């Protein structure tokens, strides 16, 4: 789906051809309309986050961030991303290798199956792990007998996050590796490379920017996931609260400035993500030469 596709719009030819030079009135009218829409739909919400975050001044902002529950939410979010992103990176590389470089039956089915988590509602993504590991779930009894907690605990949050971010890296790498073909790998083999030498010296360097792009998108989503994590977390303050869940709790307690302060952290991450995304799109375009 479009979330993960590399969008590298060609350098536009606007203005280069007479046919594409619309009358100034049309041009300016449409530009103003489009920018107005972007402003109202996208810039204003972002601005609102920061304005509300600092509504009670900088000291209040810093206090909200330094609060122990906030700090533990930051730690948990980082832990969750730190586990689920590497898992999905290994999977993504393996899947892309099998799918992009080989011809086999049922390939399209496999690609569609990999996309499933994008199509599933976040809430359902969380629910499935409750159904398996929850008190009434498949393994519920066994788990409680052995005193293992998965749902309403950190492992459940990691599982749900891994599910939600599952396709990102694979989705990024499959088209990239397909477009690069297998010539360079074959050349490496004829020059005497072993399988791993070929992979680490040729394949990996060739996909590095695309891989990083996938990692950036995957990490952003892992840190920001709300619906799925909300279902499996149990909302235990200081224990199973990720950053987005903490935003919700503060907001529902009418602690708006606190909620927006934490939200501003997530917004900064989002802006960094966008910047990295742009940079990596430019890099992959360079690498495609």
């Amino acid at each position, binding site marked *: 789906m479009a979330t993960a596709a590399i969008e590298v719009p060609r350098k536009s030819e606007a203005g280069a051809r007479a046919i594409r030079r619309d009358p100034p009135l049309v041009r300016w009218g449409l530009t103003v309309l489009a920018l107005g829409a972007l402003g109202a739909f996208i810039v204003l919400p972002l601005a609102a986050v920061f304005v509300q975050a600092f509504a009670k001044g900088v000291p209040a902002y810093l206090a909200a961030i330094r609060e122990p529950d906030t700090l533990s939410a930051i730690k948990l979010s980082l832990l969750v991303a730190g586990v689920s992103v590497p898992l999905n990176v290994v999977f993504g590389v393996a899947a892309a290798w099998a799918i992009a470089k080989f011809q086999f039956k049922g390939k399209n089915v496999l690609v569609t199956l990999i996309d499933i988590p994008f199509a599933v509602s976040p809430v359902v993504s969380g629910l499935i792990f409750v159904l398996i590991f929850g008190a009434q779930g498949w393994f519920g009894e066994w788990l409680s007998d052995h005193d293992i907690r998965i749902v309403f605990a950190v492992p459940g949050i990691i599982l749900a996050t891994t599910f939600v971010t599952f396709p990102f890296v694979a989705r990024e790498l499959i088209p990239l590796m397909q477009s690069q073909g297998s*010539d*360079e790998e*074959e*050349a*490496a*083999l*004829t*020059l*005497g*490379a*072993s399988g791993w*030498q070929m992979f680490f*010296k*040729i394949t990996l*360097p*060739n996909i590095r920017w695309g891989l990083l792009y996938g990692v950036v998108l995957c990490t952003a989503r892992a840190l920001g996931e709300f619906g799925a994590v909300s279902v499996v977390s149990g909302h235990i303050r200081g224990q199973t609260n990720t950053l987005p869940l903490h935003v919700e709790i503060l907001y529902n307690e009418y602690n708006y400035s606190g909620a927006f302060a934490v939200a501003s952290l997530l917004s900064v991450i989002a802006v960094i993500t966008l910047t990295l995304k742009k940079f990596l799109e430019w890099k992959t375009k360079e*690498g495609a*030469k």
Partner: protein
Amino acid sequence: MSIEVSHIRKFYGTFAALQDVSLRIEKGELVALLGPSGSGKTSLLRIIAGLEVPDSGSIHLNDEDATNATARERQVGFVFQHYALFRHLTVAENVAFGLRLRPRATRPAEAEIRERVRKLLDLIQLDWLGDRYPHQLSGGQRQRVALARALAVEPRVLLLDEPFGALDAKVRKELRRWLRRLHDDLHIASVFVTHDQEEALEVADRVAIMDHGKIVQMGTPAEVYDNPANAFVYQFLGDVNLFHGRAEAESSVSYVRPYELEITRQTETVNGAVLAKVRHIAAAGPAVRLELLREDTGHALEAEISRDRYRELRLSIGDTVGVTARNVRVFAKQ
């Protein structure tokens, strides 16, 4: 180092890419695999290199069975059609790649690797481009780097897939002569794939002409050109006219090359000539090409005559001329 290919078959699904192909290439020979696209020539080359697995048959390198050897074990130098240069490595790093991969025991010292790279870059006359990246090079330069990279590991045979296919006409001519000289210096068995008959006939010691997954004829350029085995080879090696004489068997077809048509000023069918009308004259170039329309059958003919002869005849469009064939080839209908 010789290459022996025996009874190779290769199917893609139900499509027979190679049907019982056998050939032998001796050390020091430069052989061209020539054929139209889809004739199986690239598949054959890739099978020799170990890049593709045949369904049956065997490959011997230096009279040792290499059928089940991997590409890595075969030690062939392969030059890819689109060069397959490693885009993240410089020219020098590309050339050194195969040497640096080797296990410590057999790897030359770094200084020696550098020296060998320098020599190879000298050889391809690109010593000043060692620090560039592939995307900064022209097509002809990339082609030579690909060749240097393949040669760096001192391959036992050299295989080239459409080596000049992506280059413009002038660079092509230069490079193919250069390749011929290089091959003579190296004295290994080399095979290159091409669909350009001029290239194959000019450069190769022997030419294997392929059609529909089979080698239809193999021989020196002169042999295949002068004694084509069938109508396909004859047509593939040059421009042709279908040329039916009067006494024509139903089961055969006759051809003649444009420069083997004699044009005379006459309006009567004497001396075995057929009459034709001049429809178009292309007078630029070393020879003059005439487009003719036979008056008896209505078939078009193409003739090539020298400029001197053209001036002598003083032809213009609409003239009726006599056409005689000097060298008609008759083949059984296929």
